[in-house]
Structures are given as structure tokens and as C-alpha cells.
């Protein structure tokens, strides 16, 4: 099933043609209407007439979160406020708040994007969709609301929180699909169990669309085992509009609609584009947004991209699971390493716990050395020293296969590594650079 079959199955060349046309129009518009972009282009020594094809994209300067903050609230808008029909704003947990604006067309395109996504993961007008993302200035609630309603699903606009009510309505109204954060879903299923409701057997819930925070394949498995539903990943940020893309039923990546967005993966350090399948920072250029168009927006999210045709029949490129944030990236012997990759490996090894530390040092010969400390779990055998040495070797080999760089593994007693409340600081970098 497709929401927009003609567009969703366009060939790669046809999509590139659309992208090129829209990109050329975009650079002219922003240069004309936005003093911010005009200044930015001039600083980078680039003029709209230099952008003749998609290959010229890399000539354009990046935009970042800091630009939105520096130009708070409306400095990057490209239309007069009379054309803006809605604001959303971010809470500013990582800095000053940012505000985003939408024209009527922007809202329509946002809905179009998420409708395509919802249909691709099997949501239809027959579904009853409980939207447990926050409604309000956060884009999650209203974003899903408009798209689900446009699709003809029956919406339960319950917003976030009030867990007992969530369980009660899920049961009484026969909710089939829920949209919320993955951690809330885990909480909700435990809460339901305490109320004597087994989501797998006592409700009609069959799927969940989870995002707005980083999560892992392990969490996906836990949710699916606990609740018997199918869990889909959703991607979007408020700057790009809000929730925009989800996995399709193939669940091998998230389709980015190429007629609306140009996605690139760049090395977070150098800003150079990386090759297909290589990991780096997702950079997005919005080619249909009007109120707040973004050129080469640095999302800060680390992933990789695949552009071969998907098993679902859609031709639009896919980004894979978000591996981490660009800010968290470490460079070890010239190789980009993300703590989330290390965490992912450790979670698969039952003999060790979930807490870990990464220690970076530079040897006298100038080579970096990475040591991973991890706590032993209850399930380790400790009869001989080789039990431990073999375990350390096994972990090191798994890490090497994922990170492409060797790490020394040191197991330690349970409970001895530092615990963190809130944002963990798991990296100790002793290198003198």
C-alpha cells in the first residue's frame, strides 16, 4: 500500500531531476528573501547562479542549531509572519530555545510526508491511533494528529502522561496503533501489568511508532517481547518540521522522501561527504519548506544511508538507525567511534553489565589506546583466569568488528564503575593533543 504511489516509486533519475529543480529555486528564494542566507552565501563565496546541479550542493554552507539560536526568534524565516500559520518551539534543554514556523503549505507537506510514512508501516483508515506524544509546542503530538486524521484513522488525542487513563482507553476504545517514546511504551506496559492488563492479550494493540529519543534494537526487542506488538522507528526533528519519516514494513531503514528533502551524510569533523554506506552526520536540505527553509542542516544525528530500492517497492533513500550524536563522536587512531556502538556491543554480551567507561590515552609512540572498562555480570564463569581473559578477548574482537579499531577490554567488579544521573559522562580522554 502506498499513500502517493506515483511519487513513492519514481526512479532515481526522476527524483534527482525534481531535487535539482527545487534546489535551484530554493537557493534563489532564500538569497532573495533572507538576509541571513544572503550573508551566509556571501561569506562562503557562493552565489545562487553557482548552483547548477545537485553536484554543486556541497558548495553551499551548512546551517546549524546555533544559527537558529543566534537568530531567535524569526531571523531565519523567509516569509512575512502574515503567512505563518503555526509556531512550534523546542524546550531548550541543550541551550537557548528555538522556534520554528510553518506556512499552510508547510503543514500540508508535513502531513503528506508522515502520511506516506504511516501507510508504509501499515497504518490505515481502519486503525485506531492513540497519540501519546506531547501535544503543544512539541511537534510530536500535533504532527501525528494531523497525519493520522488526514489518513482517516480514528485518533485518540490523549497526549503524554496519565498512564492509567492510557491503559483504560487503549482497552475500552480498542486502540490498534500507539505513537509515543520507546521508554514511555516500556513504562506503559509495566504499568498496565500492575493494573492487571496484559497488552498482548487484553488489548487490540498491534503496532507502535516510537521515536523522539535515541533507542536501540535491544529496546525494540524488549518492547515487542513484552507487548506482542510490532515496533517501528520514526525520525524527524522540529527544525525539519517534526515527525516526518518512519520505517516501512520491511524495517530496513527509514525512507527520506527525496522530492521534499535532500539527505547527505558527512564526516562530522571535516564536513566532507562520505561514501554510500559509510557512517557520518545526517545533513538535510529542505526543498519544499517555505517559512523556514534549511540549507544543509546539520542534524547532529549519526547514521548511514542506503539508496538501493527497498523491498517495499519505494525508491526513496533510507537512513539506518541513529547511532548517536555527532557531539559524542571520538576519533581513535583516525577512526570515528561512537559510544553508542560500544554500548550496543556490550548489551549483546550476557557476561557483562550495562555500565561502562571509555578511557582514551596516547602511547609514547603516538598511537591512541582505547580501554573499555565494563562490569562483570552474574552470568560469568570465573573458575580460571583464562575464563576472564577469553571473555575480554571475545568482547575486544566483537568491538573490533563493529568499530574497526582495537580496544583493550578490562573487566571490573560489579558496582565499581561510576553511575550517572541524567547525561552520562562515560569518556575519559587523557590524550594530550
Amino acid at each position, binding site marked *: 500500500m502506498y499513500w502517493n504511489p506515483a511519487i513513492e516509486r519514481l526512479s532515481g533519475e526522476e527524483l534527482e531531476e525534481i531535487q535539482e529543480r527545487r534546489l535551484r529555486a530554493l537557493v534563489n528564494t532564500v538569497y532573495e528573501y533572507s538576509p541571513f542566507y544572503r550573508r551566509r552565501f556571501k561569506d562562503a563565496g557562493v552565489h545562487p547562479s553557482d548552483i547548477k546541479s545537485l553536484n554543486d550542493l556541497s558548495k553551499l554552507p551548512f546551517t546549524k542549531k546555533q544559527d537558529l539560536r543566534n537568530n531567535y526568534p524569526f531571523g531565519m524565516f523567509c516569509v512575512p509572519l502574515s503567512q505563518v500559520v503555526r509556531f512550534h518551539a523546542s524546550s531548550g534543554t541543550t541551550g537557548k530555545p528555538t522556534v520554528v514556523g510553518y506556512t499552510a503549505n508547510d503543514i500540508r507537506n508535513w502531513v503528506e510526508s508522515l502520511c506516506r510514512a504511516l501507510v508504509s508501516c501499515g497504518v490505515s483508515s481502519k486503525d485506531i491511533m492513540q497519540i501519546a506524544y506531547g501535544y503543544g509546542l512539541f511537534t510530536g503530538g500535533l504532527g501525528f494528529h494531523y497525519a493520522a486524521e488526514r489518513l482517516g484513522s480514528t485518533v485518540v488525542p490523549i497526549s503524554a502522561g496519565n498512564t492509567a487513563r492510557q491503559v483504560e482507553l487503549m482497552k475500552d476504545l480498542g486502540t490498534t496503533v500507539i505513537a509515543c517514546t520507546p521508554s514511555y511504551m516500556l513504562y506503559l506496559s509495566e504499568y498496565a501489568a500492575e493494573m492487571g492488563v496484559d497488552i498482548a492479550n487484553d488489548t487490540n494493540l498491534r503496532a507502535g511508532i516510537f521515536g523522539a529519543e535515541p533507542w536501540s534494537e535491544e529496546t525494540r526487542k524488549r518492547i515487542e517481547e513484552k507487548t506482542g506488538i510490532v515496533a517501528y522507528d520514526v525520525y524527524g526533528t522540529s527544525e525539519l518540521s517534526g515527525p516526518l519519516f518512519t520505517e516501512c514494513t520491511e524495517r530496513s531503514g527509514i525512507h527520506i522522501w527525496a522530492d521534499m528533502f535532500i539527505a547527505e551524510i558527512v564526516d562530522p569533523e571535516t564536513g566532507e561527504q562520505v561514501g554510500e554506506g559509510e557512517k557520518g552526520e545526517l545533513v538535510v536540505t529542505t526543498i519544499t519548506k517555505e517559512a523556514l527553509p534549511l540549507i544543509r542542516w546539520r542534524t547532529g544525528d549519526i547514521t548511514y544511508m542506503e539508496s538501493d530500492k527497498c523491498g517495499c517497492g519505494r525508491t526513496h533513500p533510507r537512513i539506518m538507525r541513529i547511532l548517536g550524536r555527532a557531539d559524542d563522536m571520538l576519533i581513535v587512531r583516525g577512526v570515528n567511534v561512537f559510544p553508542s556502538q560500544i554500548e550496543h556491543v556490550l548489551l549483546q554480551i550476557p557476561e557483562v553489565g550495562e555500565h561502562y567507561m571509555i578511557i582514551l590515552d596516547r602511547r609514547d609512540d603516538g598511537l591512541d589506546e582505547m580501554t573499555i572498562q565494563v562490569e*562483570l555480570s552474574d552470568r560469568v564463569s*570465573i*573458575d*580460571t*583466569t583464562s575464563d*576472564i581473559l577469553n571473555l575480554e578477548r571475545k568482547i575486544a574482537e566483537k568491538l573490533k568488528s563493529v568499530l574497526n579499531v582495537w580496544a583493550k577490554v*578490562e573487566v*571490573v567488579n560489579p558496582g565499581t564503575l561510576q553511575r550517572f544521573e541524567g547525561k552520562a559522562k562515560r569518556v575519559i580522554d587523557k590524550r594530550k593533543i
Partner: protein
Amino acid sequence: MIKQISVFVENKPGRLAAITEKLYENNINIRAFTIAEAGDFGIIRMVVDRTEEAYTALKEAGFTVRLTNVIAVEVEDEPGSLHKIAKALGDAGINIEYVYAFTSEEHKALIIFRVSDEERAKNVLENLGVLFKGEIK
């Protein structure tokens, strides 16, 4: 078969004291003790008089601790005793992974073995009449 306690311990000052403190607090007597060290860490193996209590005390204190069945033999505390056993196991093609020994007033000389093939080792030792079947006091 007797129960041995093994404890994972990091190679840092004070780690052994943390373990012995727990045993002392619980009035547990160590009968035999050895550390196998491997760089950053070591494995303590010991036989104590009250195994379950020692295990619980160490576990509750957060140590990584295991109970393992090991073979013990009781021999006269005199020249040639260990040799006789080591030779018998060697002749039978059984590998000794580790061994440690202790003497006490209660017992003659007790030798603790971990071997590659437990069942066959037991037979060999039984035939020699040295397999320890009692309890450690």
C-alpha cells in the same frame, strides 16, 4: 568433591583486604587459599570452613563470586605423596589445570585439584584410595 569459592579481584591495593574483611566479620576460617594472577586482575580460590555463609557474605558485598566443585585428596603429609597422585593422573592422560594444598590438625594433607576430565580423575584417585569424601571443618 568439595566446594571451592572463587572470587574475581582487580589487581589494586586493598582489594584482597576488602574480601578478607568480609570473611573475618563473619567469623569464617580460611582452610586453603591461592591467587591466580593475570595482569590487571586475579582469581582468588579458597576453601573455607563455612562455605555457604562465606559465599553469601561476599555476594552481598558485591563481589563476583562463584562456587565450584573441586576434587580433593587426602594423603599422608610425607615425601612423595603429591608425586604419587600427579603421576597417576599423568599416566591416565588427565591434565591438571590447577592444584593447591593445605595441612591442618583436622586432616592429613589435603590437595585440591581442578582437572580436565573430572569423572576419570575421580576413578583414578578412588583406585589409589586417596579421594577425600569427608567435609572440611
